[in-house]
Structure formats: C-alpha cells, structure tokens
C-alpha cells in the first residue's frame, strides 16, 4: 500500500511503526515536501496479515533469526488436558452392531475359522475342506520361491486347484505352466525366462508384468525370445 500527497504530487515516506492498541499497528507516513502526515491503523485481521508475511514494517536492523516466525508465534502447551471423549449416538450404535457379529460371552469361534473365509470362498481361491495334500517337486518348489512372498499363497492355491481338478497329485514346473494356461495366463519359454533373469532382481517383477502386458496387447499367449528382443529397448541399461 502506498500513500500519495495530492497537494505535492509525491509519494509519502515511511516514518515509523508503533502499537497504538492491542493487535493493532500504527504506520505513519509524511510528505517529504510539505510535511503533511498520515497514519494508517490496522485492525486485528490486517495486523495478522502483516504478521503472516513474516516481515517488519520499516525494515530490520538485523537479519531475521533462523525459524524466527515459528519460534515467536508457536503457542506453548498450556497444560490443559483435552476434554474426555463423550459417548455419542454413533458410538452406541456401533457397539450394538459389533455385539451382533461377535460370539456370545463364553463362546469362541470355531478352530481355524478365518475372518475373511466368506470373501475368499466367493472368489474361488480357497482350497476345499478336507482337500488331499499334494506333492511339489524340488524344481517346482524352487520356482515358486521366486514369486514375491505376498503373492505366493495365491499362486500356490491356483496351481493346486488346477492339479486337483485334473486329478494330478504331484506338482511339477510343467503342471505350473499348464495351470497358467488354464487361468488364461501367459506362458514363458525357457529362453525368455533366461533373459528375464538378467534383469536386476528388484526390477524383475515389474519387468515381467510389463512384458506380459505387451504380449497380451499383441494377442500372444507365449513369451518368446523374439518378443524379448522386441521389447529390449524399454529395459536397456538394466543388464537385459
């Protein structure tokens, strides 16, 4: 904001700033030619605006101290504890609903019952009750170990479901490949897998997904060495 002396046609010069009242600044200007004076008095809101800018009207004699704005304006804890939380209608309703789904006092949930069992069953990824234990070959176990741990149970269940459906009792890498086809998934040739192994391990899962996405776009069901060569440019510099 600037003040103009209309009589002398000149800007008025800053004189001083003072605190005429609480939460108020008084900023005085004077015309350098005729000496006419004017004072601007700020209200609390306008004072807050100046304070929020972190500036001192009239300039500083010394530079601002580090983090001066925060340290000068942060209110100290006043030692008053927050009021106790009062029970609300919503909290009472929630208690009633929880009581309906929780077992009655003295009862326990059936052993092995899973809080997600109904959802898992709907999605068809749970093993049926009393299912026969299947044997995994050493090569199949090594292959499943390469899958990220949080995905492993899902993949294992999918393979085992396929095996049971087809009367297979021993799971080998070939069974794992066949189960992927059954789920509409893409198969990797040995040569393609070998090239994928050249990509750093922490990138490999993402690279696998990206290559499979490209294959699906092309309508391919198998990832070949030729496709890997074609997509090479995406991963140059990663040892692939």
């Amino acid at each position, binding site marked *: 904001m600037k003040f*103009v002396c*209309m009589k002398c*046609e*000149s*800007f008025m*010069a*800053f004189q001083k700033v003072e605190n005429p009242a609480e*939460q108020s600044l008084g*900023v005085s200007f004077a015309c350098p030619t005729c000496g006419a004076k004017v004072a601007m008095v700020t209200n*609390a*809101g306008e*004072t*807050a*605006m100046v*304070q*929020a*800018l*972190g*500036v001192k*009207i*009239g*300039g*500083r004699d010394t530079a601002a*101290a*580090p*983090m*001066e*704005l*925060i*340290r000068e*304006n*942060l*209110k*100290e*804890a006043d030692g008053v*504890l927050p009021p106790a939380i009062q029970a609300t209608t919503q909290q009472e309703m929630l208690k009633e609903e929880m009581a309906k789904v929780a077992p009655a006092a003295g009862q326990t949930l059936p052993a092995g*019952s*899973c*809080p*997600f069992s109904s*959802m*898992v069953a709907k999605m068809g*990824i*749970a093993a049926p009750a009393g299912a026969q234990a299947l044997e995994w070959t050493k090569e199949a176990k090594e292959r499943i170990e390469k899958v990220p*741990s*949080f*995905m492993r*149970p*899902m993949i294992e*269940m999918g393979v085992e479901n396929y095996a049971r459906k087809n009367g297979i009792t021993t799971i080998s890498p070939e069974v794992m490949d066949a189960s992927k086809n059954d789920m509409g998934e893409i198969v990797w040739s040995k040569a393609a897998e070998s090239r994928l192994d050249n990509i750093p*391990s*922490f*990138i490999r*899962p*993402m690279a696998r997904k*990206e290559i499979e996405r490209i294959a699906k776009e092309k309508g391919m069901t198998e990832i070949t060495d030729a496709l890997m060569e074609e997509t090479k*440019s*995406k991963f*140059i*510099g990663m040892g692939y």
Partner: protein
Amino acid sequence: MAEEKTLKEILKKIQFSDNAQVMKQLVDQSIQVKVRMGHIRRKIVVMSGKGGVGKSTTTANLALAFARAGHKVGVLDVDLNGPCIPKMLGVSGAFEIRPDGAIPPIGPYGIKVASMDFFLTEKNTPVRWKGAMELSPIWLGMFEMNVIREFLADILWGDLDYLIADLPPGASADKPPVIAGFLPELDGAIVVSTPSEVAKIVVRKSIVYARDIGIRMLGLVENMSGALCPSCQAPVPLFTEGGEGGATPAGCEDIARDLDLPLLGKIPFDVQIARACDRGIPLPLSHPTTALFDGMVTQIECSLNKKGAFVS
C-alpha cells in the same frame, strides 16, 4: 472523475521508494530459499488428494530407499498440523539454532528431517499459533506458507541429493501451489492412492490440479494393494470392483492409464510395514516391500535422468 485522472497523472510522474522495506524483505526471503535450495540436486513432493492413503509411509520408505542407494537425503514434513515423519523414521530431538541456520535432527542412514513435531513439547500438544492468528485465523494459510518458507530457507540442509517433501492431504487448495511457488525447480511429484474408488476419484482431481500448476508427475504408488489373512495367509484384496457375482480385485491401473503416468509399484497392506512405521524402525532389508521401494527409486531416478523407464 477529474480526481481519478489527476491521480493517474500524478502516479505517472512520481517514483516509489520502498522505505517501509516490506518488498525488500519479501524479495530477500525468496532469495534465501533459492540459495538454500541451490545446494539440493533434486526436490520431490509426495502428495495425494485423499488422506489416510499412506503418503507419509511412502515418503519415509522412499527416503530410506534413496539413502540405501547411497544418496544424501532430507525429508521435509509439510503436514504442519499432523506431523508424523519423525515418528516413522524414529527421529527425535530438536533443531539446533545457530546464527546461520537451524541444524535438523538426523535419522537412519543420515537422513535429515525437518518437522513441526520437533517444536512440540508433548505428544498431546497440537500446533497452535498465538497473537494475531488467534483473533484472525483467515490469514492462517498465508502464515503457514511462511512457516514452510522458513523450513526451506532456514534449515542447514547442506548438500543433498534428494529433498522429499511429505505434503498434507488435500486435492488442491494451498500446499501444492505453495511448494511449487517456492521451488520453481521442483523436479516432480509422487502421487499415492489406494485402490478404493472413493480415493481414486479424489486423487484424479489432485493429479490434474497439480499438472495445471506446472508440477510434473513422476509416478503413482498404489498402497494397501492387498492383505494376507492373519488366520490362513490367503491373499485378500482389500478393495474390489464389479458386482456381487463378479467382484475382482481393484487397482490403480486405470488412473495410471487415463492420466498417463507410470504405476511405480503396489504396496501390500502388511502388519510389518505398519509396525515398522509405528515403531520408527526401518523394515529389514530382506522384507519384500524393501525391494519394492528400491525398485521405485530406480524408476524415479531413471525418469529424472531421462534414461527411459517403465512408462506405459
């Protein structure tokens, strides 16, 4: 009318000198930010339109991953009213105030951390401002803007490779443009979302808004991508899409595709991750999520260095 003309004519003739020195101080403040930020090679923000999606968790783990990769890292906790980065990184203490700046506390792998939390004396203490702010909170936004300026300008960050700012929740409003305004050389933003439809709706808006104000999007992180049942270890998607008969696991691929940004990774909901953040102890190096964040860092670096990356 005549007076207006006269005023206009007067203003054309006379020159203003800033002897109240308000403009000079504002310019000096901006210069100080630029000088301090000039020692930092890359500045990134982590944002989301939605609260509770895991921005701070992502920020903390990205900082650890960058530091593990050998970089000098600083973390700025811009969530002034809900600071939690110090807790997640296991950092406590206070700024050491010197005439030339404030030395921040140091966390794991030498990560420098700046947060309002270091000014709060007890865990129940909220951030409250005294003086004129108490009477006129309408200027609070401008005040907080200058608090962020002080974090940028007054902290002795030193020479850093990466400064990562954890923004508070909010689709638009103030914090992204404030940061963008102070850091015209901001290298980009990482956006965090969960697969929830509600979250994705809001996150989309925040991405569009950030791009509108010139913030480059470096990628999207999908958090809470799934969970392992604590009883039978079956993987269970936390969010699904589709009707009763054909529910399928939901994801953030649609945002990545529609808004053309890389999906950097999918972080599962894992009790170990939550425990690590609550205790302020980094995840073990052998944990699969550690590798996920390491992978994200590689992608982000590739994107920043324009070496080609997983851009769909």
